[in-house]
């Protein structure tokens, strides 16, 4: 009898191992079931913004506006610049500088977005593959990205609301790749963060605080790896009643919420208004109740 039970257990264990060997993804935690191809593609995409240099021209459409922009990205020197080609004759490049950031990684994204890969069409004369990121909830936007097959830089991107409304698109007309540096590993450490006077009673799923400070006003920055949002807090003008309003430029939403005789909260980011409202309502003064 005991021998029969032992045989059954051995058979069960061996068949489980065999199934796992046939499907390597099943060996990973249930929260991160991704093929190796997908993992490498997403990892390459996440690293590209801080590691690949290029120069090119892109068409950007947001709201009713569209414009051609010449861009130059140099991850080695950090000397990035853009030139708005439709604003003025002989426009001069405008230097821009961004803070180093480390993306949370493919598995984190896969928990909050349905990721899919398929062959893409040629963009700016280069081969691409298409990475679609479909949000698993209504707290973030959807993205369809045609990524360069070699450098993983998005050559064509479409951002849409959870309801399917297209918010923003951009596409390279031409691009020349140059330097490729090691992906940025530096990030803002907790010690460097000047704590804001405000905290969030709760964070939307998947979002983490990536920065905060007190200049020019109290602010907190959150990200889920694709969706990014900043919260700015000011004093509410005495004469202003409670209320809310918003404006949209491309995929960037600006939501302003006033709490009478307390604070004026502005949530700015690439998120739906649902997320912005949640964040505004979750904001509390550190050590206080509201």
């Amino acid at each position, binding site marked *: 009898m005991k021998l029969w039970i032992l045989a059954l257990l051995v058979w069960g264990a061996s068949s489980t191992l065999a199934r796992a060997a046939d499907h390597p993804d099943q060996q990973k935690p249930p929260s991160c079931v991704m093929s190796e191809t997908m993992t490498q593609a997403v990892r390459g*995409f996440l690293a590209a*913004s*801080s590691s690949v240099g290029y120069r090119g021209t892109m*068409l950007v*459409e*947001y*709201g*009713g506006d569209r414009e051609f922009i010449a861009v130059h*990205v140099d991850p080695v020197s950090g000397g*990035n610049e*853009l030139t*708005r080609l439709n604003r003025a004759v002989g426009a001069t490049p*405008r230097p*821009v*500088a*961004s*803070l180093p*950031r480390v*993306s949370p990684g493919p598995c984190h994204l896969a928990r909050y977005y*349905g990721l*899919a890969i*398929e062959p893409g069409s040629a963009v700016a004369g280069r081969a691409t593959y*298409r990475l679609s990121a479909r949000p698993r909830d209504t707290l973030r936007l*959807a*993205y*369809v*990205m*045609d990524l360069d097959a070699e450098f993983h830089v998005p050559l*064509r*991107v*479409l951002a*849409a609301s959870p309801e*399917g*409304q*297209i*918010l923003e*698109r*951009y*596409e390279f007309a031409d691009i020349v790749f140059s330097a490729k540096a090691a992906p*940025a590993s530096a990030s803002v450490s907790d010690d460097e963060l000047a704590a804001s006077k405000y905290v969030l009673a709760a964070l939307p799923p998947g979002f983490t605080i990536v*920065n905060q400070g007190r200049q*020019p006003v109290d602010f907190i*920055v959150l990200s889920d790896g*694709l969706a*990014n949002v*900043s919260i*700015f807090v000011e004093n509410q003008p005495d004469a*202003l009643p409670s*209320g*809310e*309003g*918003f*404006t949209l*430029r491309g995929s960037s939403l600006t*939501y*302003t*919420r006033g709490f009478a005789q307390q604070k004026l909260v*502005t949530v*700015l*980011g690439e998120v739906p208004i649902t997320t912005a409202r949640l964040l505004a309502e979750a904001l509390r003064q550190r050590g206080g109740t509201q």
Partner: protein
Amino acid sequence: MTVADAMKESMSAVIDGEGSELDIARVLKAVEEDPEARAHWQRIQQTRGLLRTGQLERSVDVSQAVRQELENQPRRRPLGALGSLAVAASVTFAMVLGGQTMLGHSPLGSAASPIATAVPGGVVPIPGAAPVQARFGAPNPTMPARLPVTKTAPSSASAIYNQLARERFERYAQEHARSTANLQPNALVPFARVPEKAPAQ
């Protein structure tokens, strides 16, 4: 290729409720098959809406607009129940067939179906949402510069807060771009969204 004068007359007749069954059939066929005709039909729709409401109407689904016109227009000759069913069925068939052709996938979708099948042109289907026209180089009615807070006229407080939101965007967009650029699909696009008059970095 331009829209033939005869077709323009047929479209005008349909919109004015004076189109014959032949006109309706021709318009449906042209709108389905000819992008120029589709664009012309949209222009007529928008012009008509402008005259009627004083505001530019946003028409996305041309077939839907055709159907609405068919439903709204007075029938000069009663078609009877069978005739009405035939017109409705043909319009529905045109919409479904046209939609499926443009979407390029089963209307039932699947878990593995991509969010969009075509970025640069054509219709971009997003599961759970109505198909919308996504085309580079043309004004897109699905990309409003600003969304209304409510469908009714905004209250004075809402108007004030909408204005405050615009001002805050101009004030803080640069800082937001600086903080999050390296976490966005393209590190320079966040800066491109920043209004020109915002202080330079």
